[in-house]
């Protein structure tokens, strides 16, 4: 057993209103530079939809993630030699039009135009070529099913083998905010010919070294979530950095901090590094979720604590792991699910699936619908979060409904019709974390260097300038 710590995130989709605040604050901090205009380290998609970049979930097109070939785990894009043969031209690399051409508007014409009969117009101008352009697609083109027909091309619908109607009374949709998943088995790291992408030993954040990157751009198709981007100006790869400068100071990422729905949770998970490959190689894709739960270790178990200390997890990190909001949601209560576990990268950003209103078809006069009567089809959620295993999703939704049933019975005094899965305290804690969602309870991030070097820092007080404590 080799225990490592991972900073992980959970998003409670029940509360996402698709406001894009996360995307915008992230963009303003990290990607408002030339070459990075089109990049959204964090973006919000309306599902069903083809997403950003277009059709990112279609791995037959992009060859992203891992696959099992004769029981062996390997990158879908081929063996190392096969991939080196693609250095000069990568057939699976997305190009700018797969995202969109970034633009601004000629705002000055609004001020400088001469007197005319008509209102002046600020026309779009490309941020790449600086020429006038026609806007054909954008990063949130499908907001609230705006594009209409593109929603039907959602790859998950194809997997479900059903079409959806665009009739208003049967429509369903939900929002899906996406960041880099900082996977335990990251395909981008494995695909980088230069070895420039790495997983940080201390907190599991996946980073691209801007020194080491040579622009071979193999990470971009390899990431099944398309969360590594190519900067056309610096000609190097960039990706979400989980706001690591903030993490190191015990602060949550910008997207989490600014989320107006307060739906993001961040904290520490402990996992067994020795079992990562086996979990990623789980034969049946619908079971990968369970394998992922298996490698996440109980931070209270004495043997885990011992192993964690042995592999150098600091004391304050252990403490944070024991008091981790994400551990409770993911492992203790099991109400958070990974996005597309079938890509076998073992993503570490998890989602509490959304409940949705009752469908027209179910006409029972009930306050809370049954899981399968909800508007968003179970099979659709299962495609997104459980590799098609509907049992997993329906269990999670049932737990969320149970919590509501329990809280309702407390208010109304109605008797519960059946015995619920968890005890009273659990539902109250669940309600508090999901419903009240206080800042301090949503985030528990240990500041990077604190625990180990507190005494050292005192020693060094007034003695050195821009060194890090401990003298590195």
């Amino acid at each position, binding site marked *: 057993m080799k225990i490592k710590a991972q900073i992980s995130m959970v998003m409670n989709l029940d509360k996402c209103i698709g406001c894009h605040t996360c995307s915008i604050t992230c963009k303003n901090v990290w990607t408002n530079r030339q070459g990075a205009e089109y990049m959204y380290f964090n973006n919000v998609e309306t599902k069903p939809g083809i997403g950003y970049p277009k059709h990112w979930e279609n791995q037959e097109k992009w060859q992203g993630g891992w696959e099992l070939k004769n029981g062996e785990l390997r990158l879908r894009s081929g063996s190392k030699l096969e991939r080196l043969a693609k250095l000069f031209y990568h057939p699976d*690399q997305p190009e700018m039009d797969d995202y969109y051409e970034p633009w601004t508007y000629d705002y000055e014409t609004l001020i400088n135009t001469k007197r005319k009969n008509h209102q002046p117009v600020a026309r779009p101008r490309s941020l790449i070529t600086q020429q006038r352009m026609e806007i054909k697609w954008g990063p949130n083109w499908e907001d609230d099913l705006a594009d209409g027909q593109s929603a039907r091309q959602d790859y998950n619908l194809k997997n479900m083998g059903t079409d959806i109607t665009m009739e208003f009374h049967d429509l369903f949709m939900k929002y899906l905010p996406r960041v880099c998943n900082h996977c335990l088995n990251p395909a981008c790291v494995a695909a980088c010919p230069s070895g420039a992408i790495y997983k940080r030993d201390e907190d599991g954040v996946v980073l691209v070294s801007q020194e080491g990157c040579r622009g071979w751009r193999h990470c971009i198709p390899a990431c099944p979530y398309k969360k590594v981007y190519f900067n056309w100006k*610096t*000609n190097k790869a960039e990706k979400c950095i989980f706001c690591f400068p903030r993490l190191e100071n015990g602060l949550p990422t910008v997207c989490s901090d600014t989320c107006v729905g307060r739906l993001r949770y961040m904290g520490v998970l402990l996992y067994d590094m020795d079992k990562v490959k086996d979990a990623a190689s789980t034969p049946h894709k619908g079971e990968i979720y369970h394998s992922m739960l298996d490698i996440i270790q109980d931070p209270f178990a004495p043997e885990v604590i011992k192993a964690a200390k042995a592999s150098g997890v600091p004391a304050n990190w252990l403490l944070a792991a024991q008091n981790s909001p994400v551990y409770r949601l993911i492992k203790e209560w099991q109400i958070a699910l990974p996005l597309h576990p079938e890509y076998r990268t073992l993503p570490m950003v998890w989602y509490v699936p959304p409940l949705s209103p009752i469908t027209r078809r179910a006409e029972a006069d009930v306050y809370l619908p049954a899981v399968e009567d909800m508007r968003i089809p179970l099979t659709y959620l299962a495609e997104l979060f459980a590799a098609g295993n509907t049992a997993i999703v329906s269990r999670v939704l049932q737990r969320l409904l149970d919590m509501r049933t329990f809280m309702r019975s407390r208010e109304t005094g109605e008797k519960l019709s059946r015995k619920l899965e968890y005890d009273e305290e659990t539902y109250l804690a669940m309600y508090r974390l999901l419903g009240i969602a206080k800042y301090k309870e949503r985030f528990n991030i240990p500041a990077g260097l604190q625990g180990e070097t507190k005494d050292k820092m005192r020693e060094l007080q007034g003695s050195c300038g821009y060194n890090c404590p401990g003298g590195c």
Partner: protein
Amino acid sequence: MNEFMYGIMPYIALTIFVGGTIFRYTVYERNWTTKSSEFLSKRDLKWANPLFHIGLLMAFGGHCIGILVPKFVTEAAGTDEHMYHLVSLAGGLPAAVLFLGGFLLLLKRRFAASERMAVNTSNMDRLLYLVLFLTILSGTIGTVSNIPGGFDYRESISPWFRSLLLMQPDVRLMDNVPLVFQFHMLMWMLTAILFPFTRLVHCLSFPFEYLFRSNIIYRKK
């Protein structure tokens, strides 16, 4: 004149080539990149770029054999001059077609096909493309014009280049070299001077080590 061109200039070029590359790697590694533009213009890269690079590798291999292997070695191995010339043409002509052909396609792609490419083209790129074009063109013309085999570079250019490497340049060897080959010499020296300051450095980053490393890399802060 020859004294400078073939006795001093190569050393200036090679010094800048080596020193500049080390300097850039140690000080400016952050901009050490292939400068890939596939993101901006993908379709017309599909054939042009692999063709160009295959031609380049063939041409590079041919130059290594032609310049670094002394004549007496191949002759000792039982290859007479005529035979050698045929073999070198059999390799050199296809290489020239791929190399120059691929390069022309890339030139068209960069300068005539798309507005997006223009923003990815720096002044240094323009200079580099000009120098590279003249280098490849003069090499191709040299090869083609020498099909009858009147000029034996293995009696002149090759021993001169080896004498350079041995730090005892024998400038007289270059006295009767045809003009197009002399021009080719000038161009490779210019290329070598430009090398550290352009995208060319990416050839030193060919990721051999990738074949031998583990899939997932962990690194401490």
